[in-house]
């Protein structure tokens, strides 16, 4: 990383109502992303509060997903991508050489736009993560992890009788909850969600939103969404991105009632986007 920026991390997310009093989980300073010569993200600095939901909104191509993927170093898998700046989780630089990216991704789970269960059984989908990280010492322990993860993802009642059936046989909304269960199973601290409900119908979306609201008791959640109502419903803090820049960031309530920037105003009132 180019230069390390010393950050005096504030204990309280400034200006937040719901997330007030929450310590900062992730500190981002001057994060830039290039895809080849194209700069996709310009000096993004933002604090993510612990155990709260932070929503990233903005028009297509504004860099919100790109930035989300920085926080578990998912951009490493794209050969042309280059990331600079400082990202610290609990004070630890995620680009530090001593930190293994595999370990990082176990701590920072991810749920993708399109439900992408493995072509394996429901049980195996959830058990795969704990197995590769060696989290269970016995079959009974693994069973318990699978059950608890499915319960936390509000899928247990629907899935308990068909654990050995393929995960791809579930409905879209169930598949997405399976993907959330899969992420939870490795006991992460942070869950990144990249438009998790954009491929789902309204009822399935509502269930995912309820689930996100429950999950924030235990996890730090960052969600990218196209849907402003969704951001308003599920998040405590909202950040607005435009053309690769972080335009404005505030408590969700203030963001939707009294945005400071003209561009945020225009976007929220539907004048572009």
């Amino acid at each position: 990383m180019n230069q390390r920026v010393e950050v005096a991390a504030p204990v309280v997310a400034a200006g937040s109502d719901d997330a007030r009093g929450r310590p900062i989980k992730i500190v981002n300073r001057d994060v830039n992303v290039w895809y080849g010569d194209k700069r996709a993200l310009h000096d993004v600095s933002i604090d993510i509060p612990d155990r709260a939901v932070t929503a990233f909104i903005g028009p297509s191509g504004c860099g919100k997903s790109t930035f989300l993927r920085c926080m578990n170093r998912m951009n490493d898998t794209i050969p042309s991508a280059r990331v600079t700046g400082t990202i610290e989780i609990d004070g630890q630089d995620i680009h530090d050489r001593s930190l293994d990216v595999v370990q990082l991704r176990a701590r920072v789970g991810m749920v993708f736009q399109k439900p992408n269960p493995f072509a394996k059984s429901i049980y195996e989908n959830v058990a795969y993560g704990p197995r590769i990280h060696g989290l269970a010492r016995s079959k009974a322990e693994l069973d318990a992890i699978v059950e608890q993860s499915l319960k936390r993802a509000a899928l247990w009642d629907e899935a308990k009788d068909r654990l050995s059936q393929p995960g791809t046989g579930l409905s879209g909304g169930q598949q997405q909850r399976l993907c959330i269960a899969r992420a939870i199973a490795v006991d992460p601290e942070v869950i990144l969600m990249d438009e998790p409900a954009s491929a789902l119908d309204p009822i399935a979306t509502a269930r995912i939103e309820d689930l996100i609201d429950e999950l924030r008791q235990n996890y730090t959640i960052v969600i990218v969404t196209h849907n402003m109502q969704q951001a308003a419903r599920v998040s405590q803090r909202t950040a607005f991105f435009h053309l690769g820049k972080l335009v404005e960031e505030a408590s969700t309530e203030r963001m939707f009632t009294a945005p400071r920037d003209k561009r945020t105003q225009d976007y929220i009132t539907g004048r572009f986007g």
Partner: protein
Amino acid sequence: MAGSALRADVISETRAPGLDAGQIRGRRLREKLFIACGLASTLVGLIALSFLLFDLAADGLPRLSWDFFTSFPSRRASAAGILSAWVGSVLVILVTAIIGVPLGVAAGIYLEEYARRNWMTNIIEINVSNLAAVPSIVYGLLALGLFVYGLGTGRSILTAGLTLALLILPIIIVATRESIRAVPYSIREAAYGIGATKGQVTRDHVLPAAIPGVLTGIIIGLSRALGETAPLITIGALTFIAFLPDPPITSEFPFISFRWLFDGFTVLPIQAFNWISRPGSDFHANAAAAGLVLLALTLSLNALAIVLRYRLRRRLQW
């Protein structure tokens, strides 16, 4: 508003002359003509194949009997069989598969998943596709120099297996790479997202999803090797052979013998070629019968490829 009205005028005016009935009839006719041409071209292949099959069957079917499979070649056409040829074919293909499949699949995985994109991999890539187009006789010449004279493996089953393995390597590599590339990226992201390493992603998710395509490539490669004649003649396959290779399983310790690898051999297409070059229609019937056996083997290998692909694909859905 005025602008769009004007545009509509322009469009209808430019369209109008083309829309008369004669023009449409002309377009329809041309389309029908094209369909007829396409059908005819398809039928040429189909008719040729069925004619070939019919011709082979007419000549060869009467010769197919148990004895034909269990007899060695002979000077008398009616007593001659393909025992040494089919055993030779099976053993050569076995060696080819044991050497060619792991090499080809490993190379395909490496090139697709691990190799960095740079001038080196570009050169390798171009080479692999070029190798697929090299005439098989050239592989024979290479093998004659490299294996027979260079490494001293002789005119043996081992040499034949090595040669054919080289020959089908590009086919397997290309098939492996293509089926790996066809695995949706979302599957890899899902696995990376929960902290799988590259090896785990490849082994646990990418390869199982790519297996149907890889298997198809392997089988198509092997069935190509089964029909090859030229490179094997070049490395000195025998054409008349009245003994079997050393048995691979022996009655004494250690019960397994690899001496058969260094024995002389012949294969089905060479046997057929040998018979067809003799005067007399008796031997020609033998050649047709051997051709039928070869064709049946190749077609059943291809059928196996289709069944496997279909079966395994059904298990995977995204």
